[in-house]
């Protein structure tokens, strides 16, 4: 089935594959240079060089355990929490290495937000408090500001109409799909420049999944998105660029259309056509 899907993409593509070379110069928002993450003696990802372009959706694909999530979590210093995790190499955000001594990880995480596999509403907070948590908990108390941010973020996350009458209900009382959009709204409320999404739809039903995919499309104008997905159709649907990871290595990265129709690596083609993984 996957094979036919790839073939379909191939036959449907009207645009020649060399389209990327003719596009206007794209701005690099993030870039990793020889990024290696180790957990003790186990290497999560090794020497990854990847550019993440501004206002594009970059999908990270690959089989389970290939290091794509490990890589993603290095982009906003989420590994800081795990003492056994050692990150070497560079992660540049607008040209500045976020692992430099003088960089505060809290500031980095404000600029590089993250949405996780499972929806994570703060259990004791209402929908409203969940959305504005990133502002309220750092001292912003102005009700008018919070109201405005809340509505804007919920609209961006395509959730406002569903919850506008339930802003004071518990965040955890929403459905799974709504909770995930709530998590996205909460991430957007602090106005990040980059949004990392770690398999954001893998615990959701198809309808919620498609809502989130639409959302990703609409968010592109506002933020740069990096999404980890184990669903190749999803990568093909939502991303501009795709990076294929395999056993801790970045095998290939490029224009999504190219990766899915004309990959230069055999392993990429095998994975995409469903021969392994």
């Amino acid at each position, binding site marked *: 089935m996957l094979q036919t899907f790839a073939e379909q993409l191939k036959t449907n593509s009207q645009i020649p594959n060399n389209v990327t070379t003719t596009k206007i110069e794209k701005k690099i928002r993030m870039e990793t240079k020889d990024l290696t993450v180790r957990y003790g003696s186990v290497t999560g990802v090794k020497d990854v060089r990847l550019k993440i372009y501004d206002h594009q959706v970059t999908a990270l694909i690959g089989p389970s355990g290939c290091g794509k999530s490990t890589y993603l979590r290095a982009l906003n210093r989420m590994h800081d929490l795990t003492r056994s995790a050692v990150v070497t190499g560079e992660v540049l955000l607008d040209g500045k290495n976020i692992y430099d001594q003088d960089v505060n990880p*809290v500031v980095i995480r404000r600029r590089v937000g993250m949405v996780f596999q499972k929806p994570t509403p703060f259990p004791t*907070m209402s929908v409203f408090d969940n959305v504005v948590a*990133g502002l309220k908990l750092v001292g912003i108390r102005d009700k008018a500001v919070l109201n405005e941010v809340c509505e804007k973020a919920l609209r961006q996350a395509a959730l406002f109409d569903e919850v506008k009458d339930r802003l004071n209900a518990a965040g955890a009382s929403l459905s799974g799909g709504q909770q995930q959009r709530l998590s996205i709204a*909460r991430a957007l409320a602090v106005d990040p420049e980059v949004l990392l999404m770690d398999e954001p739809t893998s615990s959701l039903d198809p309808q919620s999944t498609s809502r989130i995919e639409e959302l990703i499309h609409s968010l592109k104008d506002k933020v740069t998105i990096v999404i980890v997905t184990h669903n190749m159709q999803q990568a093909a649907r939502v991303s501009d660029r795709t990076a294929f990871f395999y056993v801790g290595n970045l095998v290939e990265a490029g224009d999504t259309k190219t990766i899915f129709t004309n990959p230069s690596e055999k392993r990429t083609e095998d994975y995409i056509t469903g021969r392994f993984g």
Partner: protein
Amino acid sequence: MSYNLKRRQIRDRIIEVLLVLSTVIVLLPLLIIIFHVVINGFSALSWEFFTEELGSPSRAIQGRPTGLVHTIIGTLVVDGLAVVLAVPIGIGAGIMLSEYPDHRLNPLLRVMNDTLNGIPAVLKGLFAFVLIVKPMGTFSGIAGGVALAFVMLPIIARTTESALMSIPWSIREAGLAIGLPRWRVVLSTVMPAARVALVTGTLIAFARAAGEAAPLLFTSFGNNYLPIEWTGMIFGPVDTLPQRLYSLAISPYSEWHSMGWAAAIILLGFVILTFIIARVATRDKFQN
């Protein structure tokens, strides 16, 4: 097959009966104690019991007004001091154990905490004696409070740790991912989520300390009278319910024996009331 099913159903019944039985065995002593205490002590409860101080045995023997007002106030003061001292430090240690598992001091803290928990309460009293009573030159409410705080501390630290650990790690990551500092994530997302368990843990520690007499013997010491100044409750010898209960019970006067039972009712009621208040205060605002 049907033979098997029958057997499994019977086994299921047996297990159920055993579970109910063990529940009854757990509850029975408690009910017997409450029943016994109430039956024996009720007659000694009177208005004067809550308004008069104990004084000398002759008061009770001659039927003059006598009571335990100084003991009840003393218990509130000593236990209150213990809570004020132990809760912040105990919860702090619990946060350290749960939230900073990689910290250098953590293994040491864990061992020390478990050791402290294992030390007999009477030794904690002795420690408070050396620490506070000796330098101050007098038995005092604060010394009793410190001794009880040592009883509460390791329990609070441990229950706090397990309460916080029960909150999924993903909540912390979600907090960090929106650019909140670590301490803020713990304080505003993890701790509220764990608050029922946190309060339960503190209550267990409190109930344990509130019933201790041994650490108070040479710290708050006991007193038959109200102090002249209210500060005497903190800086002078103070009476407490567990210790008073003990001294009334071993006294040779039957009038004091029944007052001892009444003291037991008050102590039980005190602990139960604290549990009820804490439960009401931590009710989930989203539950109807």
